[in-house]
């Protein structure tokens, strides 16, 4: 009865393929087939944002994305932001420096959305930033230090002086 399909895609810079149960979500595939533990399950219905990954550069909740849709796509998870020797990207370092991490469960999803925001290369207003980050729930931080981490990194990348805090 079971139905399988070979899914080819690029995950964190590497072309890969794997036979996948068509019933699997992308979360299932990334966690179970590729052991990418940064992809977290918090609600499984696209409300919390913990399973967020970038697909072709855009943020998606992988829990409500069928694994078979990954065919031909370029997928980036938090593991993919790290350098080959464990070097941190600027946004990961900013999360550490700004004490934006507590229990750490929402952190990977947040950082991936932040990565998409920063990749746009735009200077967003505070209100715009808050809206762009609003697809993630966090119960530990009140979002305050996450906001600081993203905003500071945005200014740094654009070579601009920061006007807060």
């Amino acid at each position, binding site marked *: 009865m079971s139905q399988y399909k070979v899914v080819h895609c690029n995950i964190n810079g590497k072309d890969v393929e794997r036979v996948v149960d068509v*019933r699997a979500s992308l979360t299932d595939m990334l966690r179970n087939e590729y052991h*990418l*533990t*940064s*992809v*977290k*399950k*918090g*609600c*499984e*219905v696209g*409300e*919390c944002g*913990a399973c967020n990954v970038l697909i072709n550069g855009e943020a998606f909740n992988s829990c409500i994305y069928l694994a078979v849709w990954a065919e031909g796509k370029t997928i980036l*998870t*938090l*593991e993919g932001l*790290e350098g080959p020797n*464990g070097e*941190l990207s600027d946004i*990961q*370092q900013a*999360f*550490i*420096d*700004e*004490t934006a*991490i*507590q*229990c*750490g*469960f*929402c*952190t*990977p999803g947040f*950082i991936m959305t932040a990565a998409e925001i920063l990749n746009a290369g735009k200077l967003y207003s505070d209100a715009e930033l*808050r*809206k762009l*980050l*609003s697809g*993630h*729930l*966090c*119960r*530990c*931080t*009140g*979002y*305050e*230090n*996450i*906001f600081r981490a993203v905003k500071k990194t945005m200014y740094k990348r654009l070579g601009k002086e920061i006007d807060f*805090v």
Partner: protein
Amino acid sequence: MFPERGKAGNMNKVGRSEVRVDAYDKATGRTKYYEDRMPANALYVRIKHSTIAHGYVTSIDKSKAEAIPGVVKVLTCFDVPDLPFATAGHPWSLDPSHQDTQDRLLLNRHVRYWGDDVAVVIAENEVAANQGVRALKVEYEELPFVLDVQKAMEDGAPQLHDAFPNNILKHTTNIKGNYAEAIKEEGLVKVEGWYETPTVQHCHIENHGCYAYMENGRIVVVASTQIPHIIRRVVGQALGRPWGDIEIIKPYIGGGFGNKQDALYEPLCAWCTTQVGGRPVRIDCSREETFVSNRVRHNIRYHIVTWVRKSDGKIAARKVDVYSNQGAYASHGHSIAAKGLNAFPQHYPVPAYEGNAWTVYTNRPAAGAMRGYGMPQASFADDANIEDCAIAIGMDPMEFRNINIMPKGFTDAFSGNTNYYDTYRECMARGAELIDYERKRKEYGHDTGNIRRGIGLGTFWYNTAVYPISLETSSNRMQLNLDGTVTMQCGETEIGQGADTAYAQMTAEAIGLKSYRDVHVISCQDTDITPTGTGAYASRQTYVAGFSIRQTADLLKEKILKYAQDVTRQSPYCMDIVDGNIIRKEDQKVLMSLKELAMTAQYNTVHSEHITAESTYTIRNNAYSFGCTFVEVEVDIAMCKAQVTRILNVHDCGKLINPALAEAQVHGGQSMGIGFGLSEQLIFDEKTGKPLNNNLLDYKLSTFMDHPRLECDFIENPEPTSPFGTKSLGEPPTCSPAVAIRNAILHATGVAINHIPINPHVLFAELTKAGLIHDSWRDEEGK
């Protein structure tokens, strides 16, 4: 970016904003939570929950479920051992009268809320398990149910537990002076009100889950919990097995906030593995289950009568009735209501106080511990009523608090807690200055247009740890490693708050290491290995671990210096450890490094020693931890929306071990407090008792767009009872935001709203009642 706050004495490893010890792993997603350690062959256990609020299971037809390919076993409420157990994450008490109520079974024939556990399906995969649950046919004999706390107390109300007539789990009083006499004084102004707070849920982003398996005849449970050692005891009790047969492992967890300070599904999971020959089994709560079938915050209704003397603004007498909605099972029970009941006359000491608290079973989800443990509820009622008192006698609310709030030197007879400083007034004064309270208090509150601005204040009472109500103990073990670093472990768990980092800083400080990075805190607790500790709750970890860290560090140091005596021929009394070196105190000469000492000790062929220390400290202190919240709001009358435009918390939690982490704790508490005040509420269908919004879309947790910038500051009065001058901060920040919001809305609109959340529905009703909203067409409809 964080100013170097005043350091505690001459200590320099504490009082610094160090990076969390677990930050790198969490920033890279490699931190392992329970699900990341899951054995690949674990069977899925999925739970069948009752679809009625009250009644008896008369039969369960398993045949369809058992026929589903992949289903291994179906277990029902007719199969479980008849061993009632208690789930609260309280230390065990040797005094039977002080033990928690044992009113739970692993699965229930008598179901007491919509969502109660009646059966499980164990299957080889998730889909089969879910299909199995859907295929179970459960027949019930339905009984009437009751959701309201006071209705549940009435004669003839549906009865939940036979041993508790009128559903009253417990009733306690707190009497000071003579209330009946005190209110006879002439000229007193009576301020009376009913205040109510809602059922809310913790909403840690990682749902509770666990897996269990058997190894050499013993049961191992890996669980997302705050309290591994307590869970071991509860699992043993629930399964009727010796406690030594149980091993609980607690990895990193994605938040807890009190929900995981309870035995949730660990006992059921442990039992399930015994029913499938010890194969690994997993229970992963869905978000929907987390909302309903874990724990919630007690919905509490307060009736407060306060008698105020107009001449000097002093409170003459106060009467407080507390009705706490326990839901279907006792869990933490009366402790929550009692904490608030007993806080009132400390927060605002009065000559005459008459307090009553009832904790009452109803057919709602079981209420347990949640950040603040009853104080967000009590603080709301208390400081709302205090605000009303100030207004009733025409006094500024902050001035009124300054007159009545706990003075410096106050000592509570029961706990022995003393207010060593004038903490409340210092916090309020600092906050008022930072937010420009006095000017805004005058300027706001007079708007006549659609947008109305207001500023409000709320204060809270809190303490630290659970002494003298319960055992307060902390143990830890330290081991000198061969590189001169120290490995440390204790039972007080890291749950996201940053405890491990505070321990590393305190340990480095106490031993004399160069950096907190020279301490390796074993974050994962394993009850087979970790010294016994009761876990993370009551904002106790930093305070209580401080005692045992200091004590164990002294023991370790003693051993180190004793060994060093052999090598250096110096008296231990003349030596010390500073920055990872053994020095001679008099001339500060470095005698040898800890690494040299460790290597020498370990590999000495005549006298080899592995230098470790372990000790238990029984804490017989408690510490007050106070503070306040200032809030500015803008109310859009026509749209029925209140927006917090500024929020500022000021806390005195003693000396900060790590200021950056302390700020982060406050932010999280403020956020939870804003949700409590404005938007969060788990609601139930009155006709069926079914929860209506048990998901993250319909339950209005604050999002990134629902907050202003979160501001906080600290008054660092050193706590005299703590070896590190510190005290509680985990829970306090969540106590006062809601009432400050309520008071700011009152200032903005003149409308006193006594039940939260103050969401648009409530504002619509209340603003309409107050005449600020007038829908003319409704008059015509009424005709």
